[in-house]
């Protein structure tokens, strides 16, 4: 009998109210890249935590390299050759790369002194062995996210992992970093390691995995060979219905200019100009996509357009009126709504209930207040209405926002922002970290806004999203607009060249 790296037999795990894993049986071969996909809450992470020993299954058996595992816990999992790289890194920023990698397994000289030279050497050795380049003496805090992740992987390898579990490793990475990660994964595979790759991005798993397991509501829906399936096929298994990748849009010709930006200069937190004199117009009935690699001024642009960051030079005109007061309240009053890129950090007051989050910022409107007091009845009515209208689950507007899944939290944000009935909707990374179903929902809402005569600006690092939704696309590179083109003329190659700064349209071409 062939020996599998991991074999699961009828694993069941029940959490209060949900069956997180329902009789999961699967076999993962040695040396393969095995992907697990599924919507948020499908039970992927729970299963990995069981394998890693953070949870104990209610029933079922686990075999690692053919050996049955009893009473698992992380220390034992590490001993058996399982390593896990979490979505949120567990590194100490003030320590060097080498110090982080050896943490807990220090080389000690004379009983007390940390042997720095040996540490550096060992780290160099292991990084060369797997072709994962790192600078051992660099402080981790100074490294980009992609490299930090590499350090995490090295940390796991250093402890002798033969099976690596990567939990949503691409969620925090830029497209370039994803490419490098995939090279890393291939190197690990060539070195004989087994990689378990958890994701909800179908395109990625098709590219990197050998086999793909699809989870839904705690059940294993099927295991597919990456070569024999398509995005559409996986999506159907995942969501349980056909997912519309192309959303129909009404034929529309863009209307009046409603937002105009002239020679805008915005400074970053570090005091250097992040947006260097850009100009563009936004019209009714259109979605303007702003494409670009992360860190090219998107954040500063969005914050300037919503009053969260002062404008250094240039003008913003809303309906032809120049904005003089740069504060968020003024922008909201002028009809600008904003889906922020980080819903947990900025979009929600997490300890507040869903209904309290749904009218955040509108508490002084006559509907939500009676004089100095909140109008609790209307607040509740509004909350309950939106929870049903947007299918925010669970259907209970009195739950604390923190207890919702990412997709449902985003629905709360979208519901609130759309309910402002804004003329201008600025959507920054509106589907970041969302699964296929929730993304589809958000996309529908953006198109609904456009179709009803509103203007939408979509800022996204995901080219696919930009191309699917936009009527017109501008590309941001190094704080400047390097190209502007109608969506039907945009190709991935062309946009890619612009995004990487390898091509640039002249001013006359930009004007539209």
């Amino acid at each position, binding site marked *: 009998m062939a020996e599998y790296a991991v074999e699961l037999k009828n694993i069941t795990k029940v959490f209060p109210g949900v069956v997180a894993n329902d009789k999961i049986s699967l076999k993962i071969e040695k040396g393969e890249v095995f992907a697990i996909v599924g919507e948020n809450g499908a039970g992927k992470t729970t299963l990995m935590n069981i394998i890693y020993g953070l949870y104990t299954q209610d029933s079922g058996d686990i075999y690692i390299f053919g050996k049955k595992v009893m009473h698992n816990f992380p220390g034992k999992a590490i001993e058996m050759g399982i390593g896990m790289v979490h979505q949120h890194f567990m590194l100490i920023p003030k320590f060097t790369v080498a110090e982080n990698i050896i943490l807990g397994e220090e080389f000690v000289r004379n009983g007390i002194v940390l042997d720095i030279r040996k540490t550096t050497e060992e780290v160099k050795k292991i990084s060369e062995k797997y072709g994962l380049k790192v600078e051992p003496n660099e402080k981790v805090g100074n490294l980009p996210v992609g490299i930090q992740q590499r350090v995490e992987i090295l940390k796991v390898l250093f402890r002798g992992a033969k099976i690596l579990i990567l939990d949503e490793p691409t969620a925090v990475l830029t497209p370039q970093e994803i490419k490098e990660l995939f090279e890393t994964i291939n190197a690990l595979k060539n070195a004989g390691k087994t990689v378990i790759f958890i994701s909800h991005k179908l395109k990625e798993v098709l590219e990197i995995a050998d086999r793909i397991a699809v989870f839904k509501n705690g059940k294993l829906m099927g295991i597919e060979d990456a070569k024999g399936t398509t995005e559409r096929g996986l999506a159907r298994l995942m969501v349980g219905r056909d997912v519309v990748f192309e959303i129909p849009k009404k034929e529309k010709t863009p209307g009046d200019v409603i937002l105009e930006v002239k020679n805008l200069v915005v400074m970053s937190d570090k005091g250097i100009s992040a947006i260097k004199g850009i100009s563009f117009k936004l019209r009714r009935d259109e979605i303007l996509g702003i494409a670009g690699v992360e860190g090219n001024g998107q954040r500063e642009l969005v914050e300037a357009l919503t009053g969260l960051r002062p404008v250094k030079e240039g003008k913003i005109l809303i309906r032809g009126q120049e904005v003089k007061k740069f504060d968020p309240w003024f922008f909201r009053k002028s009809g600008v709504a904003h889906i922020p890129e980080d819903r947990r950090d*900025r979009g929600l007051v997490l300890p507040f209930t869903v209904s309290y989050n749904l009218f955040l910022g509108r508490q002084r409107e006559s509907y939500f207040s009676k004089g100095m007091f909140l109008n609790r009845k209307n607040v509740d009515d509004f909350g309950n209405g939106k929870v049903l209208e947007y299918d925010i689950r669970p259907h209970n507007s009195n739950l604390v926002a923190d207890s919702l899944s990412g997709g449902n939290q985003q629905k709360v944000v979208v519901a609130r922002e759309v309910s402002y009935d804004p003329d201008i909707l600025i959507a920054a990374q509106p589907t970041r970290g969302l699964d296929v179903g929730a993304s589809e929902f958000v996309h529908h809402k953006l198109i609904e806004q456009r179709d009803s005569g509103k203007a939408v600006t979509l800022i996204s690092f995901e080219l696919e999203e930009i191309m699917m939704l936009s009527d017109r696309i501008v590309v941001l590179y190094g704080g400047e607009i390097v190209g502007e083109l109608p969506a039907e003329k945009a190709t991935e190659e062309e946009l890619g060249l612009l995004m990487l700064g390898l091509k640039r349209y002249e001013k006359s071409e930009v004007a539209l």
Partner: protein
Amino acid sequence: MRTKALDSSNEILNWWNREKERLSNFLVPIIAIIVGFLVTGIMIALSGKDPFAAYTLLFKGAIGGSFQEIITLKVSGEGLLKGAILTLTGLSVAVAFNVGLFNIGAEGQFIIGAIVAAYLGFKLNMSPWINFPIIFIAVAVISGLYGALAGWLKIKRGVHEVITTIMLNWIAINLVENWLVVGPFSIEKYQPTSFLAGTPYVKDASRLKPFFSATRLNASIIIAVVAVIFVYILLSKTVLGYEIRATGKNPKAAKYAGINTGRAMVTAMFIAGALAGISGACMILGTEGRYPGVFRPGYGFDGITMALIGGSGAIGTFFAAIFFGLVRGGATGMQLMGIHKTFTDIIQGVATLFVAGQVGIKFLLYRIGEKRPLTKEVAKSAND
């Protein structure tokens, strides 16, 4: 069979998950207080006294006594009076906590309120119906502005409120005790023959008089209860309270949504200052009768403890304050057997320490409730 057993155990778990936050918010302070008593008991034992006898005296002094004594508030009156003063400074700190600021300045605001009440108390010479409103409004406004100053410095200059409120405390203490009380407001200026230090006694019409002859308990307790109701309604029912809490819980989100977070902070600090000031005024117009030469009862700092143990809510702060007020009132009883009454401060200190470490206590509670090893992070990932 198995599924049935699973169902009922699930129900218990469901209930636990739903209620654990609320339950532990309630249990943590109680456990903290119990631990406080235990640790203090050990210390009493170490000092060679009998902790059981000491605590018996403490509780007798706090609430014990004959039925008649309790009814006439002969025993508990002193404790309730202390509780009222603590409630007001506790609410001051709690309101500031709600907007996300740490008001260490309650002590300074308390002193400002005290001197304003002392001055107006001997200057105003009208009927109580006119005196009291004028005094309390003046106290609220002046102490309120003193508190708001720290909020204003925070939003305009970005100075941390802990730094400014500590500095404002010293400014208040020196301004009042090294200048006003020995200079312009001093009793010598008005009654040159007096041997007292401090300000003159407030007029009889401005005194908060004891309800009963047996104790010094006065209208402070009514003022404290009104303040509790006011803060409760403010925080949970009003638009301003909503803005204050949104700012405190996530200032970035509040600002993004268009809430004027600066205004929320300054307003909350104004209310905090006013509450601490009223506390000082109650002390002067009630028990003290004037601003004495040296007056640093520390109630402002004790307010931090009350707000922490009370979970920054109006009702919780009230209960914490009344409890510790009674304990302090009873501590006088412990002195009968030679235990200094400051031993009760140890109870308070240890309890605060435990509430401050409540993340740890909650973690243990959750663990007992679930009987399985759970780290915070894992608990989180269970949700997705």
